């Protein structure tokens, strides 16, 4: 190809124009303090579901009332894997809001907090944080997140009325759980013993993820060995394999609802609350649906830990609350305002907002907030496990690695199209891919 001088000049101009275009696309979002009088405006990013939106609005209203010279603008984005990618994109292109609401634990670690967030270890409210929570929003000894909302537990939600009617007691071993389920099935064939809701695929993971406290009790080093690829801490080996076995077993034994393949989480919570089903492996945070749709039935539902095959290991798995973070692009007076916003969320006034608007699913992660006396009954079940020292955070808070295909693999295992052993093998492969992507040593 030969260029005439005119053409060469044009190509040069075009490439400069192109470069300029590319640059303008990335600049101008520095977010550094632009002083418009004494009033500071900060932005706050939360998820676009109705519960998070309502909580964000209420929190902002209360905050602006206390600090009239700060105004907070709320932005929303979808949750789930799509939201994960949006978070990463916004942080790496420096277009993130000043304050953002996101998961703690492994998802938080994947955001590269050291460069993308502001260290807030020096704030006064940090000393009130629960130790477990502090760990899951920290890198090294630096704290980056402030809790918003309560922790929740992953266990078996059960209908207390049905248990009372049939004279069943809380199972402490997996065999007792299966025996209870069979009794429920034979007592009234119209009542589903165990609900599964693969219409929302994430719900398929509970019997595996919610079993982690049992694994941890049996082998406290399991999470560490799993993270650094040491020993036989794999899902194909016991004790971790039992979660896959349980997922396959309840379907093979015909103990689940026959529309398990299409039922959604909300439909399942409704079936549980109305007594059409007796038990549901689920997170207590899903109780928000019952609080909204069947408020009268809230106290009919309790929770117990997913039973281990061995009673001495049975313990409850806890999920830490999500947190508020400040992006590292926030500077000067916006940074001050953002820090005030985080402190406010963990002050008595902020706790009052959380009590009112957030779905209470378990204890708070900071001693600054206390559960109200009106908290639903199942929160006392959760508290009891914590008081008895029979509870531990889920694996995603102890290890940065969680394979992205777990829910899909477990749907296949739970519908019987893949065996438990094959599913566990596939998941180990998935874990390896994630570990390599994260650049963890030992893989």
């Amino acid at each position, binding site marked *: 190809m030969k260029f005439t001088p005119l053409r060469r000049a044009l190509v040069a101009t075009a490439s400069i124009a192109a470069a300029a275009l590319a640059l303008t696309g990335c600049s101008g979002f520095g977010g550094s303090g632009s002083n418009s009088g004494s009033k500071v405006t900060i932005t706050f990013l939360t998820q676009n579901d109705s519960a998070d939106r309502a909580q964000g609005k209420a929190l902002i209203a209360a905050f602006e009332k206390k600090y009239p010279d700060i105004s907070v603008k709320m932005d929303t984005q979808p949750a789930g894997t799509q939201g994960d990618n949006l978070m990463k994109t916004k942080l790496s292109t420096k277009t993130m809001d000043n304050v953002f609401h996101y998961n703690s634990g492994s998802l938080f670690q994947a955001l590269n907090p050291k460069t993308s967030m502001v260290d807030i270890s020096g704030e006064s409210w940090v000393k009130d944080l629960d130790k477990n929570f502090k760990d899951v929003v920290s890198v090294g000894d630096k704290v980056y997140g402030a809790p918003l909302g309560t922790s929740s537990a992953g266990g078996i939600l059960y209908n207390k009325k049905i248990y009372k009617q049939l004279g069943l007691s809380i199972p402490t071993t997996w065999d007792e759980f299966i025996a209870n389920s069979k009794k429920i099935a034979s007592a009234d064939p119209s009542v589903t013993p165990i609900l599964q809701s693969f219409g929302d695929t994430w719900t398929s993971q509970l019997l595996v993820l919610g079993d982690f406290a049992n694994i941890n009790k049996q082998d406290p080093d399991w999470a560490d060995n799993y993270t650094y690829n040491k020993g036989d801490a794999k899902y194909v080996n016991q004790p971790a394999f039992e979660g896959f076995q349980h997922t396959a077993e309840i379907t093979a034994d015909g103990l689940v609802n026959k529309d398990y393949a*299409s039922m959604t989480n909300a439909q399942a919570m409704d079936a549980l609350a109305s007594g059409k089903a007796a038990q549901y492996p689920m997170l207590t945070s899903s109780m928000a649906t019952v609080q909204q749709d069947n408020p009268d039935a809230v106290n009919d539902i309790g929770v117990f830990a997913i039973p281990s095959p061995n009673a001495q290991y049975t313990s409850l798995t806890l999920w830490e609350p999500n947190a508020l973070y400040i992006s590292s692009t926030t500077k000067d007076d916006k940074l001050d305002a953002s820090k005030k916003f985080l402190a406010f969320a963990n002050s008595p006034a902020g706790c009052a907002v959380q009590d009112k608007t957030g779905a209470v699913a378990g204890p708070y992660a900071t001693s600054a907030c206390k559960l109200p006396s009106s908290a639903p009954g199942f929160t006392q079940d959760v508290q009891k496990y914590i008081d008895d020292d029979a509870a531990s955070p889920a694996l995603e808070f102890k290890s940065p690695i969680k394979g992205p295909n777990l829910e899909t693999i477990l749907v296949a295992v739970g519908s019987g199209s893949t065996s438990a052993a094959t599913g566990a093998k596939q998941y180990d492969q998935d874990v390896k891919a994630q570990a390599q992507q994260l650049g963890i040593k030992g893989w």
Partner: protein
Amino acid sequence: MTSAAVHIEGKPTAKTPQAPKKDRRRGIRSPYPSWFYIPAGALYLIFFAVPTFSSFYFALTRWTLFSQQFIGFGNFVQFFQTPALTQGFINTFIYGFVTSAAKVILGLALALLLTNPIFGRGYLRAVVFFPVLVSTVGVGLTFKALLDPFHGVVNQVLGFFHLPQPGWYTDPHLALLTVAGVDIWKGVGIATLIFMAGIVAIPSDYFEAARVDGAGSFKVFRSITLPLVRPAMATVIILSLIGGLRSFDLIWAMTNGGPGFSSDVIASVIYKQYQAGFFGLSTAGNVILFLVVTAIMVPVQWFLNRKEADL
């Protein structure tokens, strides 16, 4: 600029005498000044050329958006170890060929019907074409509701007549075919339209001559319509096969590749890897998908065009 132009700028040779040179140059020169191309060229460069070529590089890295590490062909090795990748490949081919074949057959049948003077032809043409205008995701969600195994209209009607009520998209053996069926419903309109244009373009003299020679309807179809709509058929096959092989939106809206991995196609496998943050790995998957689609489409196109030239 083509090599011919370069050649002309050099010394004239015996093969390119002086006189035609100017003409050819004028022929190559476009009527627009060069700066006219800058906006389009810049956009093409930024949004197509740069991403395409950088994707070949990023396919060789472990990339987190924050940082990247060159790992050679590691991503390609890993991509081929993905669980259910084989299933994904098989599903892609099943989906591509089933939808393409059905669109050709149904499209031709509908086009024959709708080019004949039948009652309400204009209305029926609109009805057949209508699904093409609706958003694919909208169609997916609508059919998901209609085909719900327990609360969906279709199964309730089947239940009323005491017929079996299959789990359309919850039965692992059926899910892929269900989605393919919806894809056919949605895409057959465009195939019909292309076939109708092909049929209408056949001169009516041929039909009259055939009738005079005593050919029946079937003979007319086989010996006149079918050979002469071949260019239209080639277009339909190529469009629907490309569409089927890289289809994603409808599958994602209806099943997310599930239940399990039973309706995963390559595109949804790649999308899930992208969602999981495996940016290097999913880019490698896209490079592979690009090669596979090219490897299938180039021979198909060559074959169909050769047939066309034979006519």
